C-alpha cells in the first residue's frame, strides 16, 4: 500500500483552489501565460471512457490523453486568487475559488522556517471600521442654513507647514494703520486636504509612479485641485527632480536614506522647491519594522535612482542616530530645513501607537518652530511588502490617536500650529471623501491615502487575502513589480485618468458633506457635526451618541 503523504502540501491547504472546467477550455493557454506566479500549468491527464460503437450496447473501454490546466501545489508558486486567469479566459473555463479550510500560512512557515511575507494588507478583519460607525449627524436647516453644494464656492485647503501663534508673527503697524509683515516665519503651503500617500518608486513600478505624477500635475494645472503626492522612500527620478512638477511632490526621507544622495546632488539643478519634505520615522503597515524591498524588485533603474546594488534593501526600523524627539527636531532644523533654505516645510511621519500623543505633545513645544506637520499612519495602511505578523497583529488604528493628538493640542492651546495629517485604511471601503471628512471633523487638518490609489491603478488585491503578492515582484497588473513584461500590462494614461476622475468626484463629495453642515471651509475639529451609533466609539472619541 502506498503511504499517505499527509505532511505534504496539498491543494486543500492552499488559500485558493482553481475551479477548472475542461469541457469549456479551448486550450488557448491565455490563463497559464498570464498567471505570473506559475500557479497553474498545463499538463496531460489520462482519461478512461466507456463507449459503445454498436447500436446495441457493446461497452468498450478506451483511454485518452487529454491536455488540461492544473493547479500548481508549491510553497512559492501558489495561487493568490488574483483572478487574472479568469479575466483572460475567453470561455469562462477557469476561476479561483476561496478555500475556507486553508491553512497555508502555517504550512509555509512549517516548511520554510521563514516568516510569511505578503502585500500590505491586513487580512484579519476582527471588527468593522470605526469610521463606518460614525455619521455626519448635524444637518443645518433652519438656524444655520445649509449651502448649495452645486453653486456655492468652497475653500477646501489645509496647511502643510508650521504655523506661528498670532502673537509671534512678526507684524508691525505701518503709518496707514495696516499690519505689515516684516521678518521671517516658517513656510506654510495650503494644499488639498488629501495627499497621495508615500509609496516608493522601488515598491511601485515606474509606470504607476508616472501615472500618479501625471494625475497630480493634471489635477493641479487643469482642475485647480492643489493635490500633492509624496515620494515615499527610495528616491525620485532625476527627470522629476529637475522638472517644474517637483513643486507638487513631497520628498520623503526614511530610515534607509535611499536615494537621498541623488536628491541632494540634484539640488543645484532644481527649478522649483519641492512641496515639502516628510521624514518617515515609521509607517502604519509595519509599525516597528523598516522598509522591505526584496532584491527581485531592485531592477536596474531602481539601482540607479536609489544608488544601490541589486540586493535586499531593508530600511532599519529606526533612524540611526536619532534617539529622542528633541533630537529629531534638531535634525529637522539643521539638515533639511537649512538644505532648502527654510523655504520648504519639513514634517514627520510616525506609526500610530500608544506613544503618539507624547511625541506630538513634545513636538508642539518645539522651540525652533520647525516642525511642519505631524503625519500619523495607522494600521490598514501600507503597500508593498511586510511580514504578515506585522500586518495582522501590530499597530494602532489612526482614528483614536488622531483624536488624542488633537485633544492634546487643544489642551495646550496649540491646535493648528503643527498640522495633523492622518491615514491608515482611508478610502478602504471605496469612499475617501467621507473618511477624510470625518477625520477632519475629529481634528485632522488633512489625510493621506496610498492603497486606494493603487486600487485605482487596477490592483486586484483586497483585505480578504486576495492577491497581496506585492512582495513577490510578480504583481499581475504591473503595479508592484519591476518586471518589464508585467509592467507593460499597466496602461499609464488609463491609470492617470482614473486617479483624476476619482479626485474630481472626491472634491464634489467633500462639498456634498460641507454643504449640509453649513460650512464653506474645512470643519477641522468640528466633532459636533458627527454622531456615532456605537456608544463605545462615541465615548472614546468624545462625539455625540445617537441611536
Amino acid at each position, binding site marked *: 500500500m502506498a503511504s499517505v503523504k499527509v505532511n505534504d502540501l496539498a491543494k486543500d491547504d492552499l488559500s485558493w483552489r482553481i475551479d477548472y472546467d475542461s469541457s469549456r477550455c479551448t486550450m488557448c493557454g491565455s490563463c497559464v501565460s498570464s498567471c505570473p506566479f506559475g500557479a497553474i500549468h498545463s499538463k496531460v491527464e489520462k482519461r478512461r471512457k466507456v463507449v459503445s460503437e454498436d447500436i446495441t450496447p457493446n461497452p468498450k473501454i478506451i483511454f485518452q490523453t487529454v491536455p488540461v490546466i492544473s493547479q500548481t501545489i508549491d510553497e512559492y508558486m501558489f495561487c493568490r486568487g488574483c483572478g487574472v486567469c479568469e479575466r483572460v479566459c475567453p470561455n469562462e473555463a477557469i476561476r479561483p475559488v476561496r478555500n475556507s479550510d486553508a491553512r497555508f500560512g502555517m504550512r509555509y512557515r512549517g516548511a520554510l522556517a521563514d516568516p510569511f511575507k505578503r502585500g500590505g494588507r491586513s487580512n484579519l478583519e476582527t471588527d468593522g471600521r470605526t469610521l463606518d460607525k460614525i455619521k455626519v449627524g448635524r444637518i*443645518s436647516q433652519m*438656524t*444655520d*442654513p445649509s*449651502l448649495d453644494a452645486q453653486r*456655492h*464656492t468652497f*475653500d477646501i*485647503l489645509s*496647511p502643510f*507647514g508650521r*504655523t*506661528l*501663534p*498670532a*502673537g509671534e*508673527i512678526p*507684524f508691525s*503697524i505701518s503709518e496707514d*494703520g*495696516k*499690519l*505689515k*509683515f516684516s521678518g521671517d*516665519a516658517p513656510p*506654510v503651503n*495650503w494644499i488639498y486636504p488629501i495627499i497621495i500617500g508615500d509609496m516608493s518608486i522601488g515598491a511601485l513600478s515606474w509606470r504607476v509612479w508616472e501615472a500618479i505624477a501625471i494625475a497630480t500635475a493634471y489635477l493641479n494645472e487643469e482642475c485647480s485641485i492643489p493635490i500633492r503626492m509624496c515620494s515615499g522612500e527610495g528616491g525620485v527620478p532625476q527627470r522629476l527632480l529637475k522638472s517644474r512638477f517637483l513643486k507638487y511632490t513631497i520628498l520623503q526621507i526614511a530610515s534607509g536614506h535611499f536615494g537621498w544622495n541623488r536628491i541632494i546632488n540634484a539640488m543645484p539643478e532644481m527649478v522649483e522647491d519641492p512641496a515639502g519634505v516628510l521624514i518617515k520615522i515609521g509607517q502604519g503597515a509595519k509599525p516597528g519594522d523598516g522598509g522591505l524591498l526584496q532584491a527581485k524588485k531592485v531592477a536596474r533603474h531602481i539601482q540607479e535612482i536609489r544608488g544601490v546594488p541589486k540586493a535586499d534593501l531593508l530600511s532599519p526600523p529606526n533612524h540611526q542616530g536619532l534617539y529622542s524627539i528633541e533630537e529629531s527636531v534638531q535634525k529637522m532644523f539643521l539638515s533639511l530645513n537649512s538644505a532648502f533654505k527654510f523655504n520648504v516645510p519639513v514634517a514627520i511621519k510616525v506609526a500610530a501607537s500608544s506613544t503618539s500623543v507624547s511625541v506630538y505633545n513634545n513636538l508642539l513645544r518645539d522651540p525652533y518652530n520647525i516642525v511642519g506637520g505631524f503625519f500619523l499612519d495607522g494600521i490598514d495602511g501600507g503597500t508593498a511588502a511586510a511580514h504578515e505578523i506585522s500586518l495582522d497583529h501590530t499597530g494602532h488604528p489612526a482614528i483614536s490617536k488622531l483624536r488624542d493628538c488633537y485633544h492634546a493640542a*487643544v489642551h*495646550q*492651546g496649540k*491646535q*493648528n500650529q503643527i498640522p495633523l495629517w492622518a491615514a491608515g485604511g482611508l478610502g478602504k471601503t471605496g469612499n475617501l471623501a467621507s473618511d477624510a471628512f470625518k477625520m477632519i471633523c475629529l481634528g485632522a487638518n488633512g489625510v493621506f491615502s496610498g492603497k486606494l490609489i493603487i486600487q485605482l491603478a487596477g490592483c486586484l488585491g483586497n483585505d480578504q487575502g486576495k492577491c497581496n503578492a506585492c512582495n513577490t515582484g510578480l504583481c499581475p497588473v504591473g503595479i508592484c513589480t519591476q518586471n518589464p513584461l508585467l509592467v507593460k500590462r499597466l496602461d499609464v494614461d488609463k491609470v492617470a485618468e482614473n486617479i483624476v476622475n476619482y479626485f474630481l468626484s472626491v472634491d464634489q463629495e467633500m462639498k456634498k458633506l460641507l454643504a449640509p*453642515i*453649513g*460650512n*464653506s*471651509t474645512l*470643519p*477641522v*475639529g*468640528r*466633532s*459636533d457635526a458627527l454622531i456615532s451609533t456605537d456608544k463605545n466609539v462615541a465615548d472614546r472619541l468624545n462625539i455625540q451618541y445617537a441611536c
Partner: protein
Amino acid sequence: MCRIGAIKSKNYIQPKTALQLMRSQQKGHDNSGFAMVMQDLGGVFEKYKGLPILSMACTDDGIKIAEDILHKEGFARVFQWAPQVFPREGLKIEPMPNYVFQVYQLPKLYKYAPESEKEELLVEMRLKIRKALDELDEGFIYSFWPDVVTLKEIGDPSDIGEYFDLWSENKDFSAKIISAQCRQNTNYDIVRYAAHPFFLQGYTAMANGENTFYEKNKNFQKNLYKGYLGFESDSQCFLYTLHYVHKVLNWPLIYYKHTITPLSFDEIDKREDNAVLSKIRSSLANLEINGPNTIIGVLPDGSVFNCCDSKKLRPVVVGKNKDTVIITSEVSGLNDVMPERNWEDDIYTHEREMIYVNNDLEVQRWHQ
C-alpha cells in the same frame, strides 16, 4: 433668530428707545427676554465716569458675596443705584430679588498702577465674584467696568420694561450708547449669562445667528485669556475674538473681519497684503466663523461697528439721522424709532464690509 440693535447718539437716550427698537422687530419670535448694555452713561452715573460699576442680578446673599470680595481686595463703594421695580400680576417676567448697580473706588494700592493693571484687576474681580456666585447659585454678574451698566432679564420685553419702569423718560438712567437684544438663547436652556450683549474689558458684542464653528472657536479661545469663559452662548465667541484681535494682539479693527471671515485663498493671493492676510488665516484658523451671523460691537472708545459672515446669511441695517446712528437686525425697528431719517441712506452691510461709526457719528464703510 435674535433681534439685536445698537443705538449710538450724541445725546443721552433712555432704555425706552432700545425697548421700542426691539419691540418693533418682535414679530415671529418668542419674547423670552431682553438684555442691554449701556455705555457712556448719563443720569445718576454721569459724575462717576472713571470708576467701575458693578452690574449684577442676584439674591441678598449674592450682594454680600460680591461686596465682601471687593472690600477684601480694597475696593470702596462710593455710590449705588437700583431701578425701582413695579411688580404686577400677569407680567411675564422671572425677576431676581436684586438688581445691583454699584460704583466703586479702586484699591488705594492701584492709584499709580498702569491702566493695563487696573483693567486686569477688574476682570479678575468679576471672575472671582462670578465663581463665588455660581458655587452657591446666588446670582449673576454681568460687568464690572467704568461707565458701563448691564441689565439682562428673562420674560416678555414689554413686561420687562414695565417692571423696571423703562418705558418712562427716566433721566436718571440714560446713556449715549445702548446695545440691546430681545429673546433669550435657543441653543440651550434659558441661562441669563447666555443673553447678548456680552461684555469684556470695555468691549461689547452681540450677534444674530448661529456660530457653526462654536466648538472650534471655543476650544481655541479657552486657552487665550482668563476672561474667555462661560461660553453659555455660541455667540460669546465673537466677543472673545474681538477682544483678542483688537486688545490682546493690538491689531487694527479691520483685522477682526479678516480673522473671522478670511478672504478665500484665491483672493488673498491676488492682494498686495497677501503676506499679512495669509499669515492671519493660518494662525487664527480656529477663530474663523462660518456663519450665519451678523455681529454688532462696541469698542472701549465708544465707536460702534458691524460686520456679517462671509455669506451674509443674516440681515442687518444701519440708519442714521443728524445725531443718532442705529445698527439693527431689521428695518422695521429703524422705521419705528427713527421714522424721519432718509431711508435711502440706510446701509445693508454686505458680506465683505465693515461698518464703523466713530465718535463724531461718522459712518464709514470699510471694504475687507
